[in-house]
């Protein structure tokens, strides 16, 4: 058994006639940022959804820190240390930024079937939420309900909420999408910082970010992994250039 935090073996998912995940095998090891890139509709989000338990695979296995989790539901996997962000933001819309983060802290802290305590007095929740917010662009938006955030702000909150849960491994589905030019750059710095302590599986179309963050890249096309390698290997892989990157000079 390898020392991988997350390990996927021969995963298959079919939607009717379409094989969205086609015998995918990959792993994420401690200390690494494993980027997963590929054309639109290649099956990246579908894969993430299977990893975190929202979708049941048709074949194959998923291991989390050595434990098989293929049959577990989402909360059980989260309890084992899996964290994720959503491509299309998924937040508690009527709650404020701070409450969203505190909810994640509360999820980790436990004791949530208590009906006789007072949440506001669980000071640790709130101080931890504050600490996470400090120094982020959302620092001054703590009291704003999510419904009143702009698109990019919601994307930033997605990450904070995931971090607040303190997972062992983080699955990121396009964290840069929706961020502005400047914010993307800040996000790269932040993620690099997080990556020090937390291995990640990163799905992203922003190549600048991918190349800046990834220690390893896998390329998914039509549900299959067609290449895995270092940044440089992938950057120069002709097949990848053709299927995915295109003429890179268009980029920036």
């Amino acid at each position, binding site marked *: 058994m390898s020392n991988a935090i997350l390990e996927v073996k021969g995963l298959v998912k079919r939607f009717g006639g379409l094989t969205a995940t086609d015998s995918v095998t990959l792993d994420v090891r401690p200390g690494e940022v494993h980027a997963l890139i590929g054309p639109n509709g290649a099956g990246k989000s579908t894969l993430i959804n299977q990893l975190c338990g929202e979708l049941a695979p048709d074949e194959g296995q998923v291991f989390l820190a050595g434990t098989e989790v293929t049959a577990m539901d989402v909360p*059980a996997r989260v309890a084992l240390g899996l964290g994720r962000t959503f491509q299309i933001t998924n937040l*508690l*819309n*009527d709650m404020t930024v701070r409450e969203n983060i505190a*909810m994640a802290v509360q999820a980790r802290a436990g004791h949530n*079937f208590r009906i006789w305590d*007072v949440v506001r007095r669980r000071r640790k929740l709130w101080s931890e939420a504050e600490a996470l917010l400090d120094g982020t662009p959302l620092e001054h938006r703590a009291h704003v309900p999510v419904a009143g955030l702009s698109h990019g702000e919601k994307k930033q909150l997605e990450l904070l909420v995931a971090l607040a849960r303190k997972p062992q491994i983080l699955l990121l589905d396009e964290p840069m999408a929706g961020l502005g030019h400047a914010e993307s750059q800040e996000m790269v710095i932040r993620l690099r910082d997080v990556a020090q302590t937390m291995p990640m599986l990163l799905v992203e179309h922003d190549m600048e970010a991918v190349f800046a963050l990834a220690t390893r890249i896998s390329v998914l096309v039509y549900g299959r992994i067609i290449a895995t390698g270092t940044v440089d290997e992938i950057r120069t892989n002709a097949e990848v250039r053709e299927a995915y990157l295109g003429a890179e000079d268009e980029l920036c």
Partner: protein
Amino acid sequence: MSTQSQEMKSLGVKIAVALAAAVLLAVPFLTDFIGGNSALSLITRILIYSIAAASLNFVLGYGGMVSLGHAAFFGIGGYVVGLMFVHYTDETPLLGFIPGSNQLMVTIPAAILVSGLLAFIIGALSLRTGGVQFIMITLAFAQMIFFFFVSLKAYGGEDGIIIRRTNEFLGLNMRDRMTLYYVVLGFWVLFMLALWRVIHSSFGTVLRGMRQNERRMAALGFAPYRYKLYAFVLSGMGCGLAGALMANFLRFASPDMLHWTKSAAVMTMVILGGVGSFFGPLLGTAAYLVLETELAALTEYWQFWLGLILMAVVLGTKGGLNALVARGVALIFRGRT
């Protein structure tokens, strides 16, 4: 919101609560001013129904589970009192082993327990669905229970069970309206305090999260099914309490308490008052019952006017009476400063 205005608000709430407490305690002495003895009954009924409405609001407003089957728990609460009374007077055990009782301290916990159990069963099945399907499946289960009792010949079928004497409680004279009022008030206060705690507890917060986004909550590690089921059971128990009190108050338990229109009426009270607000259900219940009784006394076409008023409230307020009151209060406060 600035902390100052928040403090103002919480002070406002405290004053309002103190005032309300004083008024509720004094009600029996004020009946002459507010329309006679029957007003005391009306207020007793309002208190009882508002327990049911607040219980429904707990799953509906806070948990996002729109149940159209809560009459089942209300009715079961009533029937527990009725059945125990029947077996108390018959001196035969219920189902062959449960002795009957006419003690409030026995029947009320029994009613809460049984309705909680029923809520557990119905909830465990119903919560496999969501949205509109949830509305309909809770309705379906409640209807089945309704049909069951309607055809239950041994206990009067749809004619119901007449409870000749209100349950005994601490040696009080429960036939006295005023006494009964204070007993109900006591249960009401306990219930509202408990509800307040639950809503502001860890669990209450998780529940509110569930309403807003179940998928997100699952991704945080909360298992939606278990939390929702727990809430559903608590809510069922609240409705059971209301039903038990109602049976004691009416001295009657009948399938009418189980009918889907009862679920709908309680839901109407919740919406009228303001979904997801603490005092909304009370406001809604009071408004609904007062309108119903007062309009019916004025004209036989009272349903028309009730309809018009309900319509005006929906179209004219966003968030029911609770929002209306809140806006009014805000206006007064702003007028002062």
